[in-house]
């Protein structure tokens, strides 16, 4: 954590709201008219909080995340990020980490991490310094010269996280980032993410299918229904931090996971 000196460590201030979604609905154009995808979504994410969204496949989780990232426009309702709407992607406010690592195979790990900075035309030495810092933060010092195909799945996702953090946005959106990893790597990566989150104090919105992952990571779990996606439950996760693997075996953990499962199961 000695390498995070250049990241804005934002101490969470309960009164500050990072993301505010109100009355958001979305309808897709379908061949037989509109397909309602999201319905009356209201979310408020405090700065520095770790919020996990779970829900059945096709419930519109990813669409919601794309809208938070400014990559897609909602049909109705408003989204604000630190008080301002986000009509277009704004890497200074929001970093996105995608499901598959989505690294560019023609660039090395280092160049992948530098990519967002290079779009702005930052000077080379500055980019290199930032990228090295980020690779160190995610535990990949010395791997900068490797191409993605020379890295394991977990390492690729680490590079992807480093790329998401390199512009130091206060908000990090993660769309099932560990879905493609095996169970063991996935656990390790979850733990690593919490370490990085703790070091950087980002506001995180994280989408997952895994209930265990949701409870393990989150301050709050939002449960979505099947299409059209609505928020059907908001579950505060009161487990103390730092979280440990041992907590997964406790009653409290099991009950929280059960509650999410009941919610997802009863929704048609």
């Amino acid at each position, binding site marked *: 954590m000695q390498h995070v000196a250049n990241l804005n460590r934002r101490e969470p201030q309960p009164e500050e709201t990072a993301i505010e979604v109100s009355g958001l609905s979305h309808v897709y154009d379908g061949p037989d008219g509109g397909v309602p995808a999201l319905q009356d979504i209201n979310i408020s994410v405090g700065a520095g909080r770790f919020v996990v969204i779970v829900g059945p496949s096709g419930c519109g989780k990813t669409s919601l995340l794309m809208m938070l990232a400014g990559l897609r426009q909602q049909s109705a309702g408003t989204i604000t990020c630190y008080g301002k709407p986000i009509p277009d992607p704004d890497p200074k406010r929001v970093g996105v980490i995608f499901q598959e690592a989505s690294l560019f195979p*023609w660039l090395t790990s280092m160049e992948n991490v530098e990519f967002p900075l290079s*779009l702005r035309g930052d000077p080379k030495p500055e980019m290199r310094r930032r990228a090295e810092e980020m690779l160190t933060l995610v535990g990949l010092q010395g791997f900068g010269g490797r191409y993605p195909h020379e890295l394991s799945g977990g390492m690729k996702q680490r590079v992807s996280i480093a790329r998401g953090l390199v512009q130091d946005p206060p908000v990090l959106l993660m769309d099932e980032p560990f879905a493609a990893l095996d169970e063991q790597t996935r656990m390790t990566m979850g733990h690593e993410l919490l370490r990085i989150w703790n070091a950087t104090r980002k506001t995180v919105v994280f989408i997952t299918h895994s209930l265990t992952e949701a409870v393990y990571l989150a301050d709050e779990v939002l449960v979505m229904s099947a299409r059209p996606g609505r928020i059907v439950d908001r579950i505060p996760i009161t487990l103390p931090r730092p979280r440990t693997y041992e907590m997964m075996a406790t009653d409290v953990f099991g009950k929280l996971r059960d509650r999410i499962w009941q919610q997802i199961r009863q929704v048609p």
Partner: protein
Amino acid sequence: MWLWTPAFAGVTVRKSPAMTRTQIILTRFALLALVLGLWQVLPSSNVINPLLLPPLGDVLSMLGTLLGQPRVHEAIATTALEVLVAFVIAVPVGATIGVIIAESPYLTAVFKPILFYVFAVPKSIFLPLFILVFGIGFPQKVAYAAFTTGFVVLMSAMAAVESVKADHILVARSYGATRGQILTRIYIPSMMPILLETIRIAMIFNFTGVMIAEMYASRTGIGHLIAGWGENFQMQQLFAGVILLATTAILFNEIIRYFEARCSTWRT
């Protein structure tokens, strides 16, 4: 060149790589030596009529003689210029049209089947038409070769656009990439492996186009000389021409393949 390229003919070496690799290379040299040896021995011992297949030694000395003749120099220069001009026209024009069509779902839907139909038609049947329009000089050779080559480039460019991953575009957009940046930083590197292969194959078609046009009706060029030697039963000259053309074509092919191999490290 192919003699020491293990990738040739898609050979993948698994067991004891060093050993098998040496064996393969040695076998290739042995085969080449055998063919060349037979080419020398069979005609000179009259097993094959030397009037039909002159011995290799005679052909090579004829090649030396021909390469010293001004009219052969002139023919080489003409053919080289035709090939070059046709190539310089066909590749950018074909690539641009291919990219424009592939980028528009509407144009793709309209043109793709039509292009496949036309692609199936042997282009040489249009040669008389080209002669009527362009005469039998330089423009006809260039126009015909560019026509056949442009088609191949167009089809490959469409495939190249389809090889660009939507995920990569989304990542770039999320980091605020402009349209121009998406083109230069995502499209071009994504398409590079297919584009290089296209250039290689385009040159094969291009060379073939010029040769056919020259052999069909012409007053100059290597194709014209070869056609004439064939008609006059000058087999030494004919085979010398074949060796010259084959060597040139293989050389160009291998140069592009060298660059392709460098890209293949990240080709997925």
